[in-house]
């Protein structure tokens, strides 16, 4: 079994376990379904737009990069609004700052790849891994049902997955780039589903019905 397959299998097992832990009793409300859909759509879109931005940046298509980056930021704002709708606007703002930070680290990594600057790449990867802990702490603090270390691990997987896309894009290996991109986009469900389930469990009066 390949490393990627093992990672995917392990992540699926973690997600399944978390989903069982946090699934609300009884039928889920429409609100819970909407939340799950919103998070899945938004997080998956994040990956596709990030990859569009890195591909444009690596190819030196400045105008396209600017547009992709703007769309990516609009996606970030929408995600923060979804979080803010649950935990309040101040929490949404904190989420947005953290989320934008990891995008900045990805821009740093992509710049390092484009310039073949190994030190810059390594620093960006270190920053991304450290960021995963912060993000895990944020979600765990907002919702104690979500273990910090599990969330951090899933975010690290996200960073590693998107890094693989950028690496393949830089090599012009489009078969690999798009295969990794599909993996990276699909992986976001591992974050979105448990997050939506945990929120529904935390606020049953809002997200679950008898």
């Amino acid at each position: 079994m390949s490393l990627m397959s093992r990672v995917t299998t392990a992540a699926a097992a973690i997600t399944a376990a978390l989903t069982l832990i946090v699934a609300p009793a009884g039928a889920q409300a429409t609100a819970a379904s909407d939340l799950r859909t919103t998070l899945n759509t938004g997080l998956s879109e994040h990956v596709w737009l990030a990859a569009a931005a890195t591909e444009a940046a690596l190819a030196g298509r400045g105008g396209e990069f600017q547009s992709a980056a703007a769309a990516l930021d609009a996606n970030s704002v929408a995600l923060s609004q979804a979080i803010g709708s649950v935990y309040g606007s101040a929490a949404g703002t904190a989420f947005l700052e953290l989320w934008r930070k990891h995008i900045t680290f990805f821009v740093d990594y992509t710049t390092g790849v484009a310039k073949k600057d190994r030190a810059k790449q390594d620093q960006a990867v270190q920053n991304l891994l450290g960021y995963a802990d912060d993000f895990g702490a944020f979600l765990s603090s907002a919702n104690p049902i979500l273990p910090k270390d599990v969330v951090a691990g899933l975010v690290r997987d996200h960073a590693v997955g998107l890094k693989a896309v950028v690496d393949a894009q830089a090599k012009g290996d489009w078969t690999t780039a798009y295969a990794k991109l599909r993996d990276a986009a699909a992986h976001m469900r591992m974050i979105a589903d448990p997050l939506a389930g945990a929120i529904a469990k935390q606020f049953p009066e809002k997200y679950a019905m008898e």
Partner: protein
Amino acid sequence: MRTAWLALALWAGWEGANPSAPVEIRTFQFRQASLEVPVGTEVVWSNRDAVEHTVTSGAPDSADGAFAGELADSGAAFRHRFDRTGTYRYFCQRHHFMRGEIRVVPHTHGES
């Protein structure tokens, strides 16, 4: 006699105690981000996030060194007593978007 000593000790403890005000750090926010306290108040920051935060006086581009605390993990606390009136800004060194402000005002008549 014993009761009198106990009352005296309680009175002394009460008289000597400084007022304190809490600031909770949760989900990467200083929850009481704008706080007004009377002079002499000890502000107590408590970290409820499972990650290190700092309480650093000033702003990210101009830390002034007036006070600084590191709150390594959830449960950690930092205390600082404000003995002079004024407005004190602070931020988290690790997460610059986290900012707060303490406004220290004179005692009003009748306040302990």
